[in-house]
């Protein structure tokens, strides 16, 4: 397993610039309260009803923050606040194409802690990658715990700390789609490859942070991720 997961163990994502070792997909609106938080707006334009299919975002390679690296926030522009989305990262270990829910977890190598930081947004109509695919915004790690050691990924408590204080507690039991259901639904149209990571989704109303904050996310049995939030270096003339 160490070989399989080596892309996340060190700064090797950039080694072969034309190849991304794995892709990170984040499930959106996958918490039971995500839609409740929107209230009547769910039924109105532009949404016209709750989503029926799995909703995903791609986290591109420069968005990923490896252990020990800081989360970066734009200290000057309109994106100086980030919401810290604590999420369980499901690491794919075997190629998964059109697998059933019953087969899905056999394709998982392990789990890791993720702090998926996005610019707060009121609307969920468009992909808004300017808010959701920013450089150095999605922290992973610090290690992958084997699937066997976790057993049931759908009953884990997630705790988010900002500057040492516990600010949010959530549970993977409150997800709309379980880990297995996510893999089944995604693999129906998109093959998941070894090294890919599916973020199981975060709770709504995530805590907001600015540059200078220290963020930690803890998932019982999986580990604890610590990251400093720092302001982007000043723009250089191009």
């Amino acid at each position, binding site marked *: 397993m160490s070989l399989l997961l080596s892309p996340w163990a060190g700064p090797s994502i950039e080694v072969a610039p034309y190849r991304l070792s794995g892709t990170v997909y984040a499930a959106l609106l996958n918490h039971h309260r995500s839609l409740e938080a929107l209230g009547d707006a769910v039924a109105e334009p532009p949404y*016209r009803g709750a989503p029926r299919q799995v909703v995903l975002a791609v986290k591109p390679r420069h968005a990923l923050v490896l252990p020990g690296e800081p989360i970066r926030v734009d200290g000057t522009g309109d994106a100086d606040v980030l919401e810290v989305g604590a999420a369980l990262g499901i690491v794919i270990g075997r190629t998964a194409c*059109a697998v059933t829910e019953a087969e899905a977890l056999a394709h998982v190598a392990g789990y890791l802690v993720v702090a998926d930081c996005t610019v707060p947004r009121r609307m969920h109509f468009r992909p808004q990658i*300017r808010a959701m695919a920013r450089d150095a915004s999605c922290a992973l790690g610090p290690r992958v715990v084997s699937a066997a050691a976790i057993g049931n990924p759908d009953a884990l408590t997630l705790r988010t700390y900002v500057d040492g204080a516990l600010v949010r507690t959530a549970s993977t039991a409150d997800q709309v789609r379980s880990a297995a259901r996510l893999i089944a639904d995604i693999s*129906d149209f998109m093959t998941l490859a070894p090294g890919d990571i599916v973020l199981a989704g975060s709770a709504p109303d995530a805590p907001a942070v600015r540059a200078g904050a220290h963020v930690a996310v803890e998932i019982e049995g999986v580990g604890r991720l610590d990251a400093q939030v720092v302001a982007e270096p000043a723009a250089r003339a191009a």
Partner: protein
Amino acid sequence: MKRARVAYSGAIHEATPAGDEAIRLADGRTVGERDVVWLPPFEAGTVIALGLNYADHVRELSFKPQDEPLVFLKGPAALIGHRGATRRPRDVTFMHYECELAVVIGKPARRVRRARALEHVAGYTIANDYAIRDYLENWYRPNLRVKSRDGATAIGPWLVDAADLEAPPQRALRTSVNGKQTQSGNTRDLVFDIPFLIEYLSAFMTLAPGDVILTGTPEGVVDVAVGDEVVCEIDGLGRLVNRIAGDAEFGRPSGSAVKEEAR
């Protein structure tokens, strides 16, 4: 220069054109273009795509023009090469091609200004960015089930060096289905042009070599059926051929996914 990546005789090769029917492998062999498996012409990193980026297509879909580009991302499994097959699930009623100019990044771009943006482009190719409209929902639209499907983004055949084209390229593009032209436009009509897109994206997201921007499609998208041959063409870049395949070819005999969805 035009370069392709093909699989032939047990290995992956770089190849260059050698007349209409043949290509030349880097090892010196000249082989028939039908005798190789065409791969995407470069190893892709992040796949970035534009929606609603031609004014006529925006009108076609009854959308108002936007003040910020509509950008979405795809996973790497979406890409397939020239002469590949793209699956049309049996339950869908409207699946359409989208002929697009694809911009391939050649050197890292971070906070690049418009005036220097094109220095970061390695070259250009053609993409056919299929969409299945039945799967559209109004949440993070268009979402991955519509736009990041296995093998539903054909790309190629050639990566054409940026130096060989005007900057940015202003080229006619067209699509034909079974030999009948159904779509035509010109890349000069992009709502958000290539220098703008590189400046916009690189302000928050580093672009790296191999990252690719699919710049959107003009009006003229029509439904395609299993067995159709779809050809996307851009003047000077070549012709990208794709075939529409059915579920059975992919071992999906009963539309099982549809039943599961209705659970």
